[in-house]
């Protein structure tokens, strides 16, 4: 604890005189993110039903890599702006052969969440008190594009049994046409995170970073992202909701 206090005090001395005094204008932020994602697809099935996602993917999580860009439109008591995130990840498993055994065929489900909304960074303590911690909250809408591939890496297709169609609880209209395993699902996005200001630890490097590249502040961050992605409660959509932990690097420019 004493160490933290000393570091904070040191930061209060270093940042005003060594780093921030000649900062370049700051209008945007960029984040490189990595985290896990496990959609709640099996939630639409009852407790006694077979869970297809778990059966095929074994409850695996998708490793999501993402890029976020923020436009910081307001600087006052903290900063506020708009953000957009593009991420990508996939899960892979084995197809199911006759008798319920696992086949050698791979099958994958890929996710491309596109998220946009508003972001607020409480950087008052960092700016005024030299405490290198910046809480960040975000909220917005998400649209997750997804696609499923079969054993030969084609987009998967499903032909509903004729005469059953949607009434049988399956996709499609019973016309015998293949329904492709691709689509998109709308939802809400929210996150809370803590950003640790790295400039505090390397003020000289941070100053050079700013002068040479225009990067005002650099952060390491951890963020809990809550997604409720099910076409706003639609029964006819995947439930791609999840609450996951993301880490990354953030740069204010």
């Amino acid at each position: 604890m004493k160490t933290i206090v000393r570091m904070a005090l040191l930061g209060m001395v270093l940042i005003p005189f060594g780093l921030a005094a000649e900062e370049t204008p700051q209008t945007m932020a960029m984040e490189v993110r990595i985290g896990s994602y496990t959609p709640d697809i099996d939630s639409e099935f009852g407790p006694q039903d077979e869970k297809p996602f778990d059966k095929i993917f074994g409850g695996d999580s998708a490793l999501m890599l993402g890029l976020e860009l923020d436009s910081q439109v307001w600087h006052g008591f903290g900063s506020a702006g708009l953000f957009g995130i593009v991420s990508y990840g996939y899960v892979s498993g084995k197809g199911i052969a006759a008798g319920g055994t696992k086949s050698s065929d791979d099958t994958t489900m890929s996710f491309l969440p596109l998220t946009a909304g508003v972001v607020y960074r409480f950087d008052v303590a960092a700016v005024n008190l030299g405490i290198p911690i910046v809480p960040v909250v975000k909220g917005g809408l998400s649209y997750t594009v997804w696609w499923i591939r079969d054993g030969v890496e084609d987009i998967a297709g499903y032909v509903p049994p004729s005469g059953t169609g949607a009434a049988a609880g399956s996709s499609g209209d019973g016309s015998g046409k293949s329904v492709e395993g691709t689509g998109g699902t709308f939802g809400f996005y929210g996150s809370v995170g803590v950003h640790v200001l790295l400039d505090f630890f390397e003020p000289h490097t941070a100053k050079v970073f700013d002068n040479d590249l225009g990067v005002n502040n650099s952060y390491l961050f951890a963020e809990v992202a809550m997604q409720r992605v099910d076409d706003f409660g639609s029964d006819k959509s995947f439930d791609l909701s999840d609450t996951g932990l993301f880490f990354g690097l953030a740069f204010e420019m």
Partner: protein
Amino acid sequence: MCVNIAAVLGALAVLASTPASAAISGFQLNSLEGVGDMEQKIHDRLKEELKISYQDCIDYIGFGTSQHADTVEETTVVEEPTTVDHGSNEELTESPADDPWRSAEEGKADDAGDPDARVLLTWSVSSVFNGYDYAIKIGSCSDTGSLTDEESAGCTYLVSRTDLTSFTNNELFIDVLDLIPDGCQAGDSGETGVYFFLQLGEDTFTKQVEVVKFQFDFDPPAPPENVTLDAGEENIQVAWDDEKNSETVEYVVYWYDDEFGEGDLDQVDSKSGLSAKEYQITGLELGTTYWVAVATEDDYGNLSDLSEVLSAIPVSVDDFWEYYNKSGGQEEGGFCFVATAAYGTRMAPSVQLLQRFRDHVLLGNSWGRTLTDWYYVHGPDAAAVIRHSPALRFVARVALAPAVGAAWLVLDATWYQRAALVAAAVGLLVGWRALRRRAVRARSDEGVDSGAPGPFPAPGVQVAGNSDERRSA
């Protein structure tokens, strides 16, 4: 110690009397083409890499197309090399052999009958060699030799000492049998050099030598081992081991819906150039039995014997999408239309107008097709949301109104309707600009700087202010 000094002095004396050979300045190998029986027959491996595989050898010497039937171990190896008759003009009379991995003696028998199998090599040197003599030897010669050395069993003259009168595109015909002196002897490998000597008069210190080396390898790689087949849906995954080949090799996978052997490889499906030890055969029919085998190919193009020929039957496999649906999942995927959802029915006039616009305008150009493709990917999801909400359907209709208007303007509007719309648009633009000018003038009259910043201070200003505050603290 005295002995060592003497040895060194002796070596120096030898070096002094035998001038070191330098590469020929500006030497270029321009091209290599087949002539005579070799015309249109020479492989790229020889033209581009100066390499000859066993199959190439068979083709060049004239055994004809052949197939692997036996292993290398079963061939006869001749211990003593046989002198080749380069000048024979006899016609090739023997029929192609069933087994290409034949003995050298058999090869010799046919060699003698195909004298017109030659390659034409063209070469150039710098014109600074004006006045030089040249000679060209072939075989296992020494590059320290002279232009007038006696021929030996392994080194003969292609061109005896001659005045060098031309410097570019000099032609040199080489008998294929000179390139492959021991014939197509399975398991053999080595190289044949073509030695170009240049020298000014009798001054051996001006001698320069260039060696063009043709390499041959008649030793096939070992076939893959432990081949396994995993049947999937319309595909078979093939995997194998290869512990025996230390050289760089690639693999060829063969498959067919009937049993096959070494003699059928030109009739079955195949995939060559594989560097990984696995391959997925796709496009197969469910329930059909397929036979699969793998062979190894070295960088000379020598093919190994086939691995064991195995069979498998592609089976039905549920990918996640199928399994999810069969489990009763409700996600619909597929496609539907925003406009249909917004207007409630596909028969609505606006929907039909938009469909005609899609068919007649958008699909007629690349950007329109791109836009349509994008819409077909993302439209269904928007429609799924809109369909069940009257409020969202209203919003969607308002949002689609400009698109419907544009479609009507392009497809159905008469010329005077279009003119009226253009006039209205111009009027709106002019009116908006007039109103804006009036507003700016009014602010100017009131002393307000029209260039003032907006409600939010510039972020840079804010940061600088904070910095100042911190500095003063």
